[in-house]
């Protein structure tokens, strides 16, 4: 099953492309702290490349791929035993398309509807701050949601890498500095636009003319927009329906898993060991929330190894990466298919990302007591 690893990596790359675009966009906004003119001057460098043919194509395909794979991930789930991070990512991710669609359509069609309307920051800021503040509010929310979704994704991917020790001190502050500076730039340039509107009558008249033309086209655009949102809602509903079917199908097949320390967990047929742990509040480390990346959830299978699903390539790679011994499995990948599974958690529940970055340190510490407890 090379497929899972491929899908995971494609989703990651598409997310990184989107994140790069959003960062450029927000960095451009942050320049508004200097002046409106500087913002538009830097637009050529920071935003324009994304509006060229290749850039647009890349962006559009990345967005489509990320959306589809996100919904696929929902549909491919077997339970709702989500970690707090996953809940946040799922909710934020699902909220993005309907909120962003108005902005995307407006930017894509503005020039076609009103040839005089240049999609530069001065004119758009004027619309946001003076003529249609409702869009400004929408954009504020979108900035929060998109950035949080991206930041959480980027952080949970990077924090597991050994390189995080060197770049973490730089990336983490940036993850917060970028949106804060962008919003400060947004506020500052907005003030500048309001002053300009009050003082520059010709500019104001030009913008008023453009706004009038665009608002005429709004009706058609609105219809298109609502159709798109309905289509999206239908896709989300289908994904969740598939999830619901998966959950309900195996509802009547309860199985048990035994842990070290005499704990037991019950769950449905086909859930992973980690999902058993989460559904039953068994303390179990899982830094990457069950994506098979970190290896912190690994367990030694003491009995019933035949009742677990066979390890896929993704799991074998991670196990090799963390130098797992024989008879060890990733609890997030090993699905329980029968009774009699007994496992020993190898890492303490408080294992953090350092256990994924430097597995040897944690293995050396944890191996000794595990050996002793073996009967």
């Amino acid at each position, binding site marked *: 099953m090379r497929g899972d690893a491929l899908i995971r990596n494609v989703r990651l790359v598409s997310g990184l492309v989107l994140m790069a675009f959003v960062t450029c966009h927000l960095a451009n906004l942050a320049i508004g702290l200097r002046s409106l003119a500087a913002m538009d001057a830097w637009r050529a460098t920071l935003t324009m490349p994304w509006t060229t043919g290749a850039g647009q194509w890349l962006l559009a395909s990345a967005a489509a791929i990320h959306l589809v794979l996100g919904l696929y991930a929902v549909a491919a789930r077997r339970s709702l035993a989500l970690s707090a991070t996953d809940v946040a990512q799922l909710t934020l991710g699902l909220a993005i398309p309907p909120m962003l669609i108005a902005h995307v359509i407006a930017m894509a069609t503005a020039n076609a509807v009103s040839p005089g309307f240049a999609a530069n920051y001065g004119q758009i800021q004027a619309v946001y701050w003076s003529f249609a*503040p409702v869009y400004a509010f929408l954009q*504020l929310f979108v900035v929060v949601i998109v950035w949080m979704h991206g930041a959480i994704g980027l952080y949970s991917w990077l924090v597991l890498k050994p390189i995080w020790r060197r770049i973490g001190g730089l990336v983490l502050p940036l993850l917060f500095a970028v949106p804060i500076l962008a919003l400060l730039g947004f506020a500052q340039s907005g003030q500048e636009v309001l002053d300009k509107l009050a003082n520059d009558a010709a500019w104001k008249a030009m913008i008023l003319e453009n706004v009038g033309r665009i608002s005429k086209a709004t009706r058609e655009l609105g219809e298109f927009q609502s159709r798109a949102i309905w289509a999206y809602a239908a896709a989300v509903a289908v994904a969740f329906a598939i999830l619901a079917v998966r959950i309900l199908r195996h509802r009547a097949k309860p199985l048990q898993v035994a842990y070290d320390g005499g704990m037991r967990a019950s769950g449905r047929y086909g859930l992973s060991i980690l999902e058993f742990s989460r559904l039953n509040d068994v303390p179990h480390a899982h830094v990457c929330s069950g994506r098979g990346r970190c290896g912190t959830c690994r367990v030694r299978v003491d009995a019933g190894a035949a009742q677990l699903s066979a390890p896929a390539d993704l799991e074998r790679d991670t196990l090799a990466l963390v130098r797992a011994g024989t008879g060890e499995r990733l609890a997030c990948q090993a699905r329980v298919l029968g009774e009699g599974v007994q496992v020993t958690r190898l890492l303490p529940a408080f294992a953090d990302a350092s256990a994924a970055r430097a597995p040897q340190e944690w293995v050396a510490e944890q191996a000794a007591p595990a050996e002793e407890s073996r009967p």
Partner: protein
Amino acid sequence: MNEHSIASWSLDLLAAAKLRLEALGLDLAYAPEEARKAVEATHAALMSGMGVRGATYLVILLFIGVAVEWLYWTYAYSPLRALQATPAHSPLEALRLGLRHLVLRGSGVLLFTAAAIGVSAAFNWPPRVHGLVIAATLFLLVLRLSWIAVSVVISPRRPRLRLVPVEAAKARWLAGVLMAAIVLLAIGRFVPPIVEDGAVQARHLASALRLAAYSAAALLLFVACFAFFGKPGRHAGGANTASTRAPLFPLSFPLALLVVAVYAVWLLNAGGAAAAATAAVTIALLLGLRDVVHFYWRSEADPNGERGALPAIALSLARFVVVLLGVGAAALALDTPLAALVESASPWVRIGLRLLGVAVLALLAHGVWIAVRSVVDQRLSRIAPADPHQPPDASSRLLTLLPLLRLTTAVSLLVLLVLTSLWALGIEITPLLAGAGVIGLALGFGAQALVRDVIAGVFFLAEDAFRVGEYIEGAGNTKGNVERITLRSVALRHHNGPLHFVPYGALGSVRNTSRDWVIDKFNLPLPIEVESETIRKMIKKIGEEMKADPDIGPLMIEPLKGKLYRIDPGVKVFRCKFRSPPSKQFDVRASALKRIEAALKKSGIQFADGRQIAVMQPAPA
């Protein structure tokens, strides 16, 4: 207060309540209109450059708060996970873990709030928005802290960390309902002032909002009372089935009554609601305190249901603390000027305050007394009653001292309590003390012997001169087993039966024959003809046999030995000696004599009979 004034007071109260209800009705009637206006005004304010600016700053504030809290959690998350994975082995340990939970999670929330409020000062907010932002941040703070408190106390997902006796099935629901009620109450507390201070000044709307929020909260809590406390005492222990337990009054009823009472007080007279709420919370805590305290000491409870005194102390102290906190909170809620109250000239207030002081003192004394008594009683019950046939061990000293300590504590606590109570009531006790001093002096002269006895007794006991069960000899031919030790005298049971009561003062030098070991010696007169070396060896051999004997052997510290001691005319006197534990020497000596007699008989030697035999020798030729 006579009947008439009571009647007029009630009439006034009813009239005020009627006015208030009418005002609430008016508020409800005007609220929709005001709400429409307020929404319009808010919309107008938001849909402008000002509104966008305010919202932008708010989002920045959110990012900064989250950034600070994220930074905190990069350090605190692993400890939190470790804490959550720690199984608590007893409720007391769960309490300690819970406190750490509270601190760890509360710190993050506090950091968020501090960062957000601190940074908000740097922005150029549109008019009136800054206050709104701070109110919203505090609202968030209250909700998050409440959630932390609820989730730590009820611990819905981790039964082993739960701090209150709640069944697992109900814990999640209880946490949810409590949190919902807290949200409603917080809305009722925080939102109306914002509405009132807004551009429209919507007083009626604010009042209606408050009414709606508080009514919903009261309804929720009312239903929750019956849902969660309907069947009392099920958690108290598996062994107590319905048939063996006396039925208890269901907790749900008084709790629901409290909810209704507070709601009614708020509805009819908004002023007293806060005080009524604190009073209700206090009463509710008092009602539930017993179960909670016993929950913490359930591991120490005997199978018989005997719980020891420690939970009793904890219960009474906890009750007292709850009442005190309740009174304090009610005073704060009523805006009572506490300082002025203390200075107040009204005699009733002063007497009340003083009685409160006396109650505090009495409770403290009671607590100390229960603590001392329970400790002493537990130790006493653990020490077996002294057996005079056993060698006295270290515990017999405790057996002597502990009752004495208990009595002394009781007397001194009582005296202290009476004196301090008098003092707290404002009665001048200096003359009393001086008088007591004078009388004490006079009595002291009169009761010199008594004082000497008591003090001498203290030293006897402190020096461990004797313990209950030991055989002592005092001055003046007093001797016997120590049977009882009192404050003034010691009771000695003479080996012939009479009981001596010896005051310590008259005990003089004490000879304690029950300590460590004794040496016993006895004489063995034998005819002059016997070979002294043979006898010595024979006695030594008997000594070795006795040492090997399973009955007598353990009673001998040093074996029996004998040697020629004196030669009298016709008699050789051998002296035998051995060492044994105290009061065992008689048994050992009897056994030794028996064996010696048998051995002598076997070897044909007779004891010296005391008769002198004159042997007439023929005169030499």
